[in-house]
């Protein structure tokens, strides 16, 4: 760089660099260190030990919740694929008019940005004992009295989280399906392959990258969810994020909380890496 370009580079870049280092990178680094510290009044004592991690991975109080969170995130991801794939397929291959397709695609992603909290909360209205679903069941005579089995369980959480995150699945799937060259599909049909086998042998393999991207996003978001467990989860619905919340709130054990957060961070980073690898490995060169 010449002196002049260096000067304009620094003028542009000093503030962003300082901001990101100081307010983003350093905080993550500090959180990771605090995870190795010990708890001491009022907050912690800076030393180095693995006690917090030993506790997290040996105390069933934590392992149960971690396993449950993994399980729920897996179900949510499966649910999102089952609902999202047909929708993306429909938008790309069935809707003929481009304007209608754009409109429908937009209507899928708009709810994504419309208040996450409210979208979780509506399921409380729907599934509650005197909620919409129950009153519908009672007034149609399917049941005699309102049931309290819908809310405050893991099924309610899976439904709510699938509802919230399904657009994250549709977005990459839509892009991937839309980019499949039509001539490949035509070639398959010209060769006398039926539409189902065309789907199975041509379209589906080429869409796996989108499935992986969407699944990673959905899994990571569901894994770290914070609000749905509190609103619709009930006593058996605690997830890792809620344990974190407790360590920084009532339990006031910041080192343990930071260690837990580091576990979540590591898991998400590993998943993101893995998904990028898989995507690269599975990518077929169509040029």
């Amino acid at each position: 760089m010449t002196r002049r370009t260096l000067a304009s580079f620094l003028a542009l870049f000093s503030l962003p660099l300082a901001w990101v280092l100081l307010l983003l990178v350093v905080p993550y680094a500090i959180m990771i260190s605090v995870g190795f510290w010990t708890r001491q009044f009022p907050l912690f004592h800076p030393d180095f030990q693995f006690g917090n991690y030993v506790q997290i991975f040996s105390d069933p109080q934590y392992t149960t919740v971690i396993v449950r969170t993994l399980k729920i995130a897996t179900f949510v991801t499966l649910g999102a694929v089952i609902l999202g794939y047909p929708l993306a397929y429909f938008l790309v291959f069935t809707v003929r008019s481009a304007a209608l397709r754009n409109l429908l695609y937009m209507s899928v992603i708009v709810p994504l940005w419309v208040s996450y909290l409210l979208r979780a909360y509506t399921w409380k209205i729907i599934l509650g004992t005197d909620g919409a679903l129950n009153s519908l069941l009672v007034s149609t005579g399917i049941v005699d009295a309102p049931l309290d089995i819908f809310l405050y369980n893991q099924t309610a959480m899976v439904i709510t989280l699938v509802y919230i995150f399904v657009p994250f699945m549709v977005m990459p799937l839509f892009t991937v399906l839309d980019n499949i060259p039509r001539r490949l599909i035509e070639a398959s049909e010209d060769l006398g392959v039926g539409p189902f086998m065309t789907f199975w042998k041509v379209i589906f393999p080429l869409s796996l990258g989108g499935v992986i991207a969407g699944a990673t996003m959905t899994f990571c978001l569901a894994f770290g969810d914070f609000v749905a467990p509190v609103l619709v989860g009930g006593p058996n619905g605690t997830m890792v994020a809620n344990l974190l919340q407790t360590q920084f709130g009532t339990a006031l054990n910041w080192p343990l909380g930071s260690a837990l957060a580091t576990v979540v961070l590591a898991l998400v980073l590993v998943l993101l890496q893995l998904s990028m690898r898989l995507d690269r490995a599975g990518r077929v060169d169509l040029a």
Partner: protein
Amino acid sequence: MNALRWWQKGMVGVSLAVLAFLYLPIVILVVFSFNDSKVTSFPLAGFTLHWYEAFLSNEQMLRALSNSLVVASFATALSVVIGVAAALALDRYEFPGKRLFQNAILLPLSLPGIVTGIAMLNFYKQIGIPQSLTAVVIGHATALLGVVVSQVMARLAKLNRRQLEASADLGATSVETFRRVTLPAIRSSIFGSALLCFTLSFDEIPVTYFLTGREVTLPIYIYSTLRRGITPEINAVGTVIVAVSFVLIILSVTLLRDRRES
């Protein structure tokens, strides 16, 4: 194409059902905000604007609303200023650690918000920034930088470099070139990402939860009210939020969409 096969019809059915699934809960929220009963059950009890009146006379809620608007405005302004500078630098220069820097900026967008919130809380406690709305603004601006950087960089990548060279050849200074060539070309992506930042900040819970002090934002207020129980007032304020976010989101998506002529 020939008629749809059974499994294709099935897919159409599932798709329409999923679209309905995406909107039904929002419709239910809106419907119950006008329902003249405290319980959220059918049949509806009659039309009322009572819950909107209740919301408009709830001072705590209005205060939380105004806090949210202030936080979102400042956070957006900071994100845009820092984000556009970062995007220009990343687009124009090669430097060591560039990829690392880019990944760091994008990290909060793919990490669960709670991890970012806790990281920031730990740090602020260390350097003595008290939990407050100011802390929330800094936190949101930092977490949302990635939105601005990625959107503006995407637009910059499509920019025709020859226009910049032509401008320089014609004797324009780099500031003039920026103001007259670059800025007009990326303006809509800046507005689009600003609207997106605003909406995301307005709605943000995990980072806010850990950084806020006695003064709270609207989502945190609603969140803590909901833990105590449901009031239809929430449906009313929810309906207003949904309506406003719809407008903002549609606007930002339109602005961020690539225009054919560019």
